[in-house]
Structures are given as structure tokens and as C-alpha cells.
């Protein structure tokens, strides 16, 4: 069957083209590079152009530029043991063929440890390269599964300190009212985004995971802007229509599958096509839920601190991560879970063996682990991944048969 492309995708593409085309082009606007799980609303509110190198590397990987960029970084001495997002970005920094003609030079770096410790090492290297200032927001790992009071206080103080440093970079007094507005817009986009994810769990699926991933960039890169609100409002309306019509984005859903961990962007399309040969549909991904937050414009710093420290499973205990992922997988009425053991991301991959056991135990569905890497194709083997997925689908069949026999 032919899958209709979401109309919103054209809007997203145009918004993102404009975003990259205009970033760093206006002389009075400063450029900040931010890590993916940084409360970058604090910089957007100060009129900065904020760029997210992880999102950018993912886009480069999706366009199959990863291998070439990584080669450039490794030829310059960067180790293969470092995250491949960072190697791809370094490849672009050293003159490699990045999308949109590369990234604008940063005036300041905003680095938050909520995603991982890796970003501290990466951005320190970027800071040395451009000789620019780096603002760190340290978000302690939530070992107990919830944020401690002193951790919350620590993060708020760092955000206050960051605001003072942003003032020094822009040369303008910081307007807390604008921060509240940016947080309000961020939350408005986030609310629509969350509702899109909720609609996405409908059976039959009104969109596939590829559809939502194609529209992910605005929530990662443009929070705090009206453009991001427009994208997710449009997507929500479009999906509501599809659900009302009972539209099935992938036709027959013989197997509803959920994905865990960052995808291997360069081979995701191919994997989805392989799945579809068996009537299997990738209906959801746990990765999408890193951007679901509850911000309050009346308490911007407190809620940015709390939400960015806790909304991402990478900064949470393994027990908490398992609970959250089990709930997500259940919400999709999934028949199986594919866990990507991501060679480049220990923060998202360690604990996966516990996750695999627990999901099988709690939800009674097969879980398969496939090795790969989000940007480095050398850590991925198409044959091995496909063989494992095929065996996984057979395990779902076997589970169904034994359930039928038991009944």
C-alpha cells in the first residue's frame, strides 16, 4: 500500500531550512551551541540563535554522511571510542561536507550533563577549538529515581549563574518576562507534541515512527518559538483527522513494534522497509518521549531544572527507566520491542539487558537486542540485524501460537 506523507512534513522541512539558513546570519544575534537536553529556552529568550549539534549530526547521519565525516575526524586523531555524533560534528568542523553548509561559529556553548558525561568532553573540545566560553549546567544523575531537593536547588542556581553569563555574552540585560514567554511557547509546542504521541498510539497507527522522526527537529531545536508551536499544532490536527477517519498509515499491522534507544539513523529507513516485508510496523519509539515535559511559565527556572533533569531516561535510574519504557510499550499495544544496543551511547545502552528481561517478564512480549551505532555505519551489520529481527518476528508468532493453544 502507499503511505500518505504527512502534510506537516513540508512545513517542518521549510521551518528547518529557514532555521539553518538564518542561524548566525544576523550580526546582532549571538550564536549558542547547545546539547540536546539543555534548557536552551534561557538562550532563546535572550534572542540567541541556538544550534543543537546532536540533532545536526543525526541529520547528517540520516543523509548517509556519517562515514565520510567520521573518517575526517579520525584522521585528525579523534578516537573511534568516542560518541559518533561528536566525531561527525568534528568532521564538519574540520571542513567535511556537512548539511546546510556546516554550522555557524558559536559565541557561547551551553552544555548540560542531563544526557550524558560525553557532552562535557565534546563541548570542552569545541570550546578549545573556537576559543569560546562554555556554560555548564550540571544535572546530577537521579540515582534514586527522583530528583533530590539539593540537586534541584543546585540546578536552579546554575541556571541563574548561566543567565548572568548570557547577559555578558549578549551585552543586554536579561528579561525574565521573555524567559516566561519562551517557556510558555516551549510548553505549548510540547503539549501539542505530547498529544501527537498519544494519537500515535492509536490502533491502527495514524502515523509510523519514521513520520514522527521526520518531524522531530522543531521540538529538539526550536523550543520557545512560535514556529515550533505551528508545526505541532498542524501535526496534531492532521493526526486527529487521520484517527477520526480510521486511517492506517502502514496498512495491515501484523506486528506492532516499538523501538528503544537512539535509532541508527543511516539505516532506519532500510530497517523499516525490511520490517514491512513481514507486515511489521514500527509504531513507536521510546526516544520520542525525551521531549515530553511539564514546564510552568510562572516558575520557569524551577520547572526547567526539574523537567530537564528528569524527563530523559538517560539521567534516571535503570529501575525508573524500565518502568517508563514498560508504560510506553504498553500504551502502543506492542507485540514486541527492539532494543538498539548503541555502541556510541553507553548512557542509553547500559541497563538494556535488565530492560530486556523485565519487559519480557512484565508484558509477556518478545524483546530483541540489535547492535549498532547512531552515526557510525562500521558498528552496524545489516545482515546480522535483519537475521535477528526475522528471528524476533518468529518468536512473536511462536508466542501467539502458544497463547492460542493455551486458550
Amino acid at each position, binding site marked *: 500500500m502507499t503511505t500518505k506523507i504527512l502534510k506537516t512534513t513540508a512545513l517542518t522541512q521549510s521551518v528547518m531550512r529557514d532555521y539553518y539558513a538564518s542561524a548566525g546570519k544576523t550580526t546582532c544575534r549571538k550564536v549558542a551551541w547547545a546539547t540536546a537536553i539543555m534548557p536552551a529556552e534561557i538562550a532563546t529568550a535572550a534572542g540567541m540563535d541556538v544550534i543543537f549539534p546532536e540533532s545536526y549530526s543525526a541529520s547528517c547521519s540520516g543523509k548517509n554522511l556519517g562515514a565520510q565525516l567520521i573518517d575526517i575526524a579520525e584522521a*585528525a*586523531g*579523534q*578516537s573511534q*571510542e*568516542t*560518541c559518533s555524533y*561528536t566525531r561527525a560534528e568534528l568532521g564538519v568542523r574540520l571542513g567535511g561536507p556537512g548539511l546546510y553548509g556546516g554550522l555557524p561559529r558559536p559565541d557561547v556553548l551551553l552544555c548540560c*550533563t542531563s544526557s*550524558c*558525561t*560525553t557532552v*562535557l*568532553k*565534546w563541548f*570542552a*573540545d569545541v570550546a*578549545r577549538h573556537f576559543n569560546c566560553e*562554555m556554560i*555548564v549546567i*550540571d544535572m*546530577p*544523575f537521579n*540515582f534514586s529515581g527522583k530528583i*533530590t*531537593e*539539593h*540537586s534541584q*536547588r*543546585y540546578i536552579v*542556581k*546554575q541556571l541563574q*549563574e548561566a543567565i548572568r553569563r548570557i547577559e555578558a555574552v549578549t551585552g543586554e540585560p536579561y528579561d525574565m518576562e521573555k524567559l516566561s514567554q519562551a517557556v510558555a511557547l516551549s510548553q505549548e509546542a510540547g503539549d501539542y507534541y505530547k498529544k501527537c504521541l498519544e494519537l500515535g498510539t492509536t490502533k491502527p497507527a495514524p502515523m509510523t515512527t519514521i513520520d514522527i522522526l521526520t518531524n522531530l527537529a522543531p521540538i529538539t531545536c526550536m523550543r520557545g518559538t512560535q514556529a515550533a508551536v505551528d508545526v505541532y499544532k498542524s501535526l496534531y490536527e492532521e493526526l486527529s483527522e487521520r484517527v477520526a477517519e480510521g486511517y492506517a498509515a502502514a496498512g495491515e499491522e501484523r506486528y506492532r513494534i516499538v523501538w528503544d534507544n537512539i535509532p541508527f539513523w543511516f539505516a532506519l529507513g532500510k530497517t523499516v522497509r525490511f520490517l514491512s516485508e513481514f507486515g511489521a510496523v514500527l509504531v513507536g519509539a521510546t526516544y520520542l518521549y525525551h521531549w515530553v515535559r511539564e514546564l510552568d511559565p510562572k516558575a520557569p527556572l524551577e520547572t526547567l531544572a526539574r523537567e530537564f533533569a528528569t524527563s530523559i531516561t538517560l539521567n534516571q*535510574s*535503570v*529501575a525508573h527507566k524500565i518502568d517508563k519504557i514498560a508504560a510506553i510499550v504498553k500504551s502502543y499495544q506492542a507485540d514486541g520491542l527492539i532494543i538498539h*544496543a548503541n*555502541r556510541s551511547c*553507553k*548512557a542509553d*545502552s*547500559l*541497563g*538494556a*539487558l*535488565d530492560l530486556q528481561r523485565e519487559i519480557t517478564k512484565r508484558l509477556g512480549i518478545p524483546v530483541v537486542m540489535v547492535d549498532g551505532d547512531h552515526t557510525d555505519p562500521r558498528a552496524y551489520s545489516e545482515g546480522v540485524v535483519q537475521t535477528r529481527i526475522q528471528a524476533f518476528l518468529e518468536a512473536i508468532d511462536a508466542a501467539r501460537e502458544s497463547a492460542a493453544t493455551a486458550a
Partner: protein
Amino acid sequence: MSNEAFSSLLQRCSEALADRRSYIETWKARRPGAKVVGYFPTYVPTELVIAAGALPVGMWGGPVAVSRANAYIQQYTCSIVRSTTEYALKGTFDILDAALFPPICDAVKLVSSIWNLDFSDRFLVDMVNLPERLDSTASVEYLGAELQRVGDTLAGLCGQPITDAALRAAITSCNRMRSLQEELYRWRRTAAGAGVSLAQMQTVLQAGTLFDSDEYVALLEAFFAASGLATSAGKVRGLPVVVTGLPCQQPHASFLDVFESSGLRVVNDDLFLGMRACGQIAMDGDPYANIARAFTESVALATRYHSQRPRHEFVLEQVRAAKAKGVVLLIPKFCEAEWFDLRYLKEQLAQQSIPCISLDFEEDPGSLGAVQTRLEAFAETLA
């Protein structure tokens, strides 16, 4: 080496490390009901453990064949997280009442969480949630509160409150331990101590993560009293180098012995640096705040960020202080933080025209032929 006092110190340390369980059992037998608290590198404030009346013991892994741990941890992680997990599953750590982890890297954050999920029926698992940035006053305040929380947990475990007096006494003991270790480094740079190999230093320093702190202090003091410091002049052999990359995972002694057999003399290193780096903790005022401040003022390791104290300056200072001719970067396999620093440190050393070489290692030394060849070749370039 010929120094008898050092030989005796070394023997005492080696014996204790060879049978840690006996040492711990003897310690416990003398203190009925006292607890033993394991801790993972690079740094946990052991003063808190001592002040709660418990024995802090470093969990350093080792060259164990990993099999059961593979059901918990992927194989593309460093050997120390895999070997310690294997030990936990084998029951080696069942003598511990608690295991404390610092959040030193993504792997250790997650592995500690896996231990908490899967092994907390064996012992209490907790994290001393140190800040990852050292350059904010907010970090000191945060850490002070976190240390209070950990202190409360330890007090609950040990059934006795941590008094300020007990904490100050523990700080005094650990301060003395760290100053004696510094003295040991100074002594080793004299002719008298020059014959001490890197592996021997590793043994003496590692024993400091097992022995009761007062007992360890007494051992080192006895050594200095008996050695008469610079009296027995040894012959200084080998080209002086600095070794960096060792605060966490430890190479096997046979791996470290290759340095001397390749014609190199290690004059400065960062063995167990996390435990040594906080130097002398202040005694006046709030002891929790003092420990917190000392931590944030310590040197920046690969996994700690400080905007004004980059790691290369520390390495360069180690080279200058010991008049080293080159640097060996020892990189634990799969340690992302150290691999990130490789390109950066190489560039910084090259700018200063300091020769360097990098080697990766796992706890299991494997075949050492290639290591020997590379270190010999490096020694030739320095000669």
C-alpha cells in the same frame, strides 16, 4: 630494590592485598558489629565512612574471567565495570555491607544503578553524587548537602550518628594519609627512592584503599622513620617519564613492570589520583563543607570539568616538577573520557615539544610483547 624499610612496607601491603578477605575479617573480628563499605573509584570521601565507624574498602576489579556479568553489562565497556560486576556475582563482595559509587562517567552511573536494581539484596548500594563540574560555588553547596545525605545513610547503616568530632578525627587521619603519600612521591624522586618501580608504588597506594586509615598511617610513618630518607643512595636508572590515565582502572603489575624493563623510570603518575587529589581538607568550620570544598578544589581528572584548571596543565606540571622527558598516556580500553582526552593531550604536549606515546590496556594484561616493543621504541626516542 635494596631499601629494607621499603621492602618491609611493600611486603605488608602485598600480603594484605593478596588476601583482602582475611584482612577485612580480622578487622571486623576486633570490632564486633562494625560495617565494611566498599567504594568504586575514582573518589569517594572515605572520611564519612570512617566517621560512621566502618571500614572503607576500594573496589578495584582485577583480571577475572568475565562470564556471568555478561548478562548485565555489554562487552563494549571498560574492564573494571565488568570485573567488579563479576566479583559481585561471584559473592566476592558479600563481605561488604554497602557499595558506594561516584558518578564518574556514563558507564559507572548506569552500572551502579544496575547494581542497585540487581544486587541490593546482597548489600546496600548508593551513589555519592559528586558534581561533574568543579568551577561553581553552587557545586560546593550542593556537594555539602549531598555529603550530609550520604552521611545520614551511613549512620543508619552503622547504627551510630556521625558526630562532627568523629568526622574531624577521620579527616585528620585521611589528611595524614594523603600527606604521607605525597611524601612517598617526593622520596621516590630522590636517589634513595628511585629504584621503586611503578608496580610497587601501585601496591603501596592501593593498600591505602584497604587498610584501616590509622593503621596505614602508622605503616608509612614507620617506613619513613626506618628508611632514614636519603641515606641509602640507589642508582638512578632509566629515562624519566610521566604516566597519566590511571585514577580508575588499574593495569596488572606485570604490565607496569614493562616500564622499567623498557628503560623508563616513572617519576610522576596519577595512580589512584582521585583518592589523593583532595589534598589537605581544612579542619575549621563545617566538616561537610570542608570536604566539599576540597573536592572542588582538587585537580581536574578526565571526568571532572573545571573551566580554569584544564587537565593538560596538571600533566605539564607533573612533567616540569619531576623533570620528565616524556609522557605515556595509558588509556583504559572503552574509557570514552580518556579517549576524548587523547587527541587534546597529544596536541598540548606537542605544543610544548614533549614526546608522548599512548597505550591502551585492560585489567587482564594479556600478551605484553607489543607493549614492551612500543615502550622500548619510545625510550629510544627519548635517549
